[in-house]
């Protein structure tokens, strides 16, 4: 019965769902801790180191604190949308993780929940969904600072979503596929796409910073001007879900960069540059993927505590006047090079 392929398929799907949830719910709280500690280190401080060894139990304490807080619901908010918004921020990140290959294969199980042919298209479409949560939270709060935060978020999303999509076009032209597994497969044979497309990589990562509302583009939050933007009216678990969503979005962004530009689960030498045939290589591939994602998360944190926030008009100017033309030129240049190489 166990060897029945149909049943095995279901078991595999369940295992993958558990793995993805496990990855998110274990990496995200520790990203928060890492952020606080790295921030402290950069500022020559110590950071939270009291709860557990070196503060390793701090995320649990934080979560408990959030759960025990009173869940405030002001009279002037739009109740349905207000309650829905935090979930809308968190959900898309989980949906994107479904199409990302987090390993090659462990035994007979491929390490991707949904091996979609239009995977990247799906990821882009769903990832841009998270801005609804923020915009709706700002609108439903019915109060000025959240409203400004929500508006800024929407404007920022429009400016950077375009560059995000356009920067990836050269990749699709080269690999000839929108399937994320196929893109990783291409990289195992031809080397990481970051080497071929440094400009695209740069635009993509910068746009992701804007997508995730991270400094230097954290205008929707902007604690100095907007107090804390869209989530002012939120408390308790709803606020916690926003928080979780922000970091889950960061995780997804890191996973996307890893998959598209850093060769996904592969390393450019012998046992790791082809889909795994034995189990330990398969597990190593998962480890490599997680390590790369963590490195990207470190980059996110590192940039946040280095670069100050952009002014609003600077942000728009950068999006529309620099990145947008740069992405278009990049497409043309790559197209010309590919045409020359095909004909010569």
């Amino acid at each position, binding site marked *: 019965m166990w060897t029945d392929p149909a049943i095995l398929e279901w078991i595999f799907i369940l295992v993958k769902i558990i793995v993805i949830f496990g990855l998110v719910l274990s990496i995200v709280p520790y990203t928060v801790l890492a952020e606080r500690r790295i921030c402290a*280190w*950069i500022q*020559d401080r*110590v950071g939270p180191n009291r709860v557990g060894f070196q503060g390793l139990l701090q995320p649990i304490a934080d979560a408990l604190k959030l759960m025990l807080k009173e869940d405030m619901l002001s009279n002037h908010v739009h109740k349905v949308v207000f309650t829905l918004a935090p979930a809308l921020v968190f959900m898309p990140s989980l949906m994107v993780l479904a199409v990302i290959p987090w390993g090659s294969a462990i035994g007979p199980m491929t390490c991707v929940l949904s091996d979609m042919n239009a995977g990247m298209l799906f990821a882009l479409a769903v990832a841009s969904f998270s801005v609804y949560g923020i915009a709706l939270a700002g609108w439903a709060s019915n109060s000025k600072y959240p409203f400004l935060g929500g508006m800024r978020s929407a404007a920022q999303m429009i400016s950077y979503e375009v560059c995000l999509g356009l920067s990836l076009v050269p990749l699709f032209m080269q690999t000839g596929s929108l399937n994320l597994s196929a893109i990783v497969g291409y990289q195992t044979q031809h080397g990481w796409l970051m080497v071929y497309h440094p400009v695209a990589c740069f635009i993509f990562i910068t746009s992701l910073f804007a997508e995730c509302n991270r400094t230097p583009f954290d205008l929707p939050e902007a604690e100095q001007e907007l107090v804390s933007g869209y989530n002012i009216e939120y408390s308790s678990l709803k606020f916690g879900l926003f928080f979780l969503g922000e970091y889950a979005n960061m995780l997804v962004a890191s996973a996307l960069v890893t998959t598209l530009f850093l060769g996904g689960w592969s390393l450019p030498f012998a046992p790791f540059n082809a889909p795994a045939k034995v189990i330990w290589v398969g597990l190593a591939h998962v480890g490599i993927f997680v390590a790369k994602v963590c490195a990207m998360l470190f980059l996110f944190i*590192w940039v946040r505590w*280095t670069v100050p926030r952009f002014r609003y008009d600077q942000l728009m100017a950068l999006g529309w006047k620099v990145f947008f033309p740069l992405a278009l030129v990049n497409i043309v240049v790559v197209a010309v090079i590919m045409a020359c190489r095909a004909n010569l």
Partner: protein
Amino acid sequence: MIVERPKLTIWDRLYMPQILKGMWITLKHIPMKRFTRQYPEETPPLPKRYRGVPTLVRDPEQRVKCVACQLCEFVCPPRAITVIPGFRSESGPDAKVEKEPSDFIIDMARCIYCGLCEEACPEEAIFLKKDYAMASYTREQMKLHKEKLLELGGIHEDRICKWKKK
């Protein structure tokens, strides 16, 4: 002074080199020495003349040095001190001294640690010690009474011991 707005070169206006430079600086700070003091375990070094909690002291023969003249009460700018004068016992080491406070209250919620009481005291009976963590849960607990003040003050090793000779 008028500062000329500097003319930016293309290199400056690219913005990226400066960001990378900044990132290098923050990266260098990660393994650097931390300036945090782990407070309850590590206490800060206090200067010699640090003014902490005001206390009452006894002389080497266990006499309460305070004679309840109430000068400190008078000089105290935030009126944190209340002295209730009382009489001493007629016999024993206290025989020659006229008065002592029957209670001596310093409200630590009001005290500003100015040290004027120490300065004003003609008997050298009140001293500001180096303890500074005097927090309590209630206002009532913030009021330090005579016993507590004497306990904090301890014995002042004074060479003169004027009540012995009188």
